[in-house]
């Protein structure tokens, strides 16, 4: 009952005009960042990170939620119109949406992408509201050795999700863990790896790491080819006239062809993929799309413009948004890159994810749940009808204006959060490191997750051993720990050792959204 009233209060919080304005603003920013190839919702939330110091926590989280939902949906816009997915999670939508665009059915494809996103996103948010409080209570049962094994499980999944570049995934994760060890030790007042620099004794702040990894590195990558624009064929932009508002509405015959089961399966696949650490929207869309194709009565339509394929992929990647918040809020383990940055927002605002957050501070996160739901159910269709015919113009914006603006927001934002020139310089250093990592196909998301989870991993590991006089058998004798270690072994078997039979369901390497 307390949870229900807490959630209703979350919806009530959105009636505050300021909070509502931030939600709509966040949604529009997320739509822009999701639609422009190269920009992502993660980058948008990363740029917002320094500003959260000046915003009330609830408002910052509401804005993050609406950016996340919009970013996940809007990748489908450029995927459909110009065959360039704005976000990697819309790759499947490009396969089906663009052929429809070619034959003059672009509006229909955009309409189905939005409808699938709306259903999946809203249902994912509802599942989050239903499951998160129970998950928080379950989290209370996990003791210190179990918490270590759970984080280890998350890190192993993050590494093996890279599939073809597993060694690089491992290296990036460990690099993140290594960076996290710089500064005062987690249990004893001993400085580590400061190399005589006083500024390093306090440790590395997450802000420069996030800004450098996602904003500065993107600026450096985009600077490589200043003349290529976004790789858009000008002829494809002329198709903009073919997008009509009246064709956005899915017809009854279309919905019958797709089938309610496609939406249900897509939503559930997306939600539970989101719960898995590091899996993300691409994997959710890919698995759901593959399942829809496998069970379809018309698999021959796939690849040529199947509305069922669009519905399956889009309902899954938007449903993932809700799922990704569950492990982040209850255990402090982010389900995907965007929630990893949202975790940063929580920590910066002095909130510790875990069962306490979901009980005593539920009033802070409930508006975020409500924003996730409203963004999916109301703002997705609303923006499609309001701006749909003009979406294609997004890619006409010049890089020369876009990236200098992003650079200023990132660097000045980093400064206003800490008033430290050292932190600004650190953003540049991490940006350069991330640039080389990205060029060599190291997943930078693994670096971030390693950095975020490192201190807890070490703390729980050492505490567990201290409890048992240094005997590591505690990880096997503690039932919760044993459960997570067994789960790790099961995942390792199915994702690494066992050969896939028909379909390779791995997402593209370096998936960041």
């Amino acid at each position, binding site marked *: 009952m307390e949870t229900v009233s807490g959630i209703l209060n979350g919806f009530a919080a959105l009636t505050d005009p300021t909070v509502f304005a931030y939600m709509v603003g966040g949604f529009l920013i997320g739509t822009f960042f999701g639609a422009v190839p190269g920009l992502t919702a993660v980058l948008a939330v990363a740029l917002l990170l320094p500003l959260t110091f*000046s915003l009330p926590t609830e408002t910052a989280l509401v804005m993050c939620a609406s950016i996340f939902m919009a970013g996940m949906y809007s990748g489908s816009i450029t995927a459909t119109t110009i065959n360039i997915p704005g976000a990697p999670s819309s790759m499947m939508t490009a396969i089906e949406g663009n052929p429809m665009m070619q034959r003059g059915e672009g509006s229909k494809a955009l309409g189905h992408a939005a409808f699938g996103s709306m259903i999946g996103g809203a249902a994912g948010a509802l599942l989050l509201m239903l499951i998160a409080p129970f998950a928080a209570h379950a989290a209370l049962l996990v003791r210190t050795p179990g918490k270590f094994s759970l984080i280890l499980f998350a890190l192993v999944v993050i590494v093996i999700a890279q599939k073809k570049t597993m060694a*690089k995934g491992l290296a990036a994760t460990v690099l993140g863990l290594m960076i996290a060890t710089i500064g005062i030790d987690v249990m004893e007042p001993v400085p*580590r790896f400061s190399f005589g620099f006083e500024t390093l004794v306090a440790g590395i702040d997450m802000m420069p790491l996030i800004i450098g990894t996602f904003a500065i590195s993107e600026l450096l990558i985009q600077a490589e080819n*200043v003349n290529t624009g976004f790789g858009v064929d000008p002829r494809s932009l002329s198709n903009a006239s073919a997008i009509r508002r009246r064709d956005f509405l899915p017809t009854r015959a279309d919905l019958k062809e797709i089938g309610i089961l496609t939406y249900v399966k897509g939503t559930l696949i997306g939600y539970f993929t989101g719960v898995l650490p590091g899996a993300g929207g691409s994997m959710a869309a890919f698995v759901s799309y593959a399942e829809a194709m496998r069970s379809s009565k018309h698999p021959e339509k796939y690849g040529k413009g199947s509305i069922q394929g669009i519905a399956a992929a889009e309902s899954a990647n938007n449903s993932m948004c809700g799922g990704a918040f569950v492990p982040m809020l209850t255990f402090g383990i982010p389900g995907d890159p965007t929630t990893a940055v949202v975790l940063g927002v929580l920590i910066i605002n002095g909130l510790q994810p875990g069962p306490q957050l979901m009980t005593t501070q539920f009033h802070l996160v409930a508006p975020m749940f409500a924003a996730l739901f409203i963004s999916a159910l109301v703002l997705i269709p609303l923006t499609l009808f309001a701006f749909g015919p003009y979406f294609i113009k997004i890619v006409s914006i010049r890089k020369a204006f876009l990236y200098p603006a992003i650079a200023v927001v990132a*660097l000045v934002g980093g400064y206003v959060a800490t008033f430290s020139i050292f932190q600004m310089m650190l953003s*540049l250093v991490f940006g350069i490191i991330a640039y080389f990592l990205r060029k060599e196909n190291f997943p930078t998301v693994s670096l971030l997750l390693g950095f975020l989870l490192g201190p807890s991993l070490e703390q729980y590991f050492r505490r567990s051993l201290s409890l048992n006089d240094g005997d590591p058998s505690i990880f096997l004798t503690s039932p919760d720990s044993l459960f997570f270690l067994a789960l790790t072994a099961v995942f390792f078997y199915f994702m690494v050792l066992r050969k896939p039979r028909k379909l390779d369901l791995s997402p593209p390497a370096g998936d960041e959204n």
Partner: protein
Amino acid sequence: MNFSLASIFERVVLPIVTVIYFIEALRLNPWGSEERISVSFFPIVLSIVMFFAIACMYWQRKRGTSPDTPAALQISNPLKIAGLTALYILLFKPAGYVISTTFYIYGLFFVFQYAQERPYKGIVYAVVIMTIFYLFFGVGFNVRLPKLMGII
């Protein structure tokens, strides 16, 4: 300028960083210390795992089974941006937000090949972008941005 050392991070930087990290981890808790789980234990474990990852990458490269080919580095423009950004950060406090940001944006216009074609328009747009973010941070979020001699 095309840079041929496309795997410089994997082949050079990562092994060197790991060796330095490992040596420093050993120095944290000298051998013979009675404490079994000391401050150096976790970093030593991390170093060993990193050496394993580096060995795996080396083995994959050696056998030609590495699944990915690093993209060629076109380092010229990123290098210019990194230099410009470093200069901007160093001048941010002494020169103030208005001057340093305007010059930084104008410099970026050059790298993105906008200011060469339209130098005067470039100055105008640099001032416009600087002003937008001044209003955003300084007025919207009430942040005190650095000023040159407390004036601008």
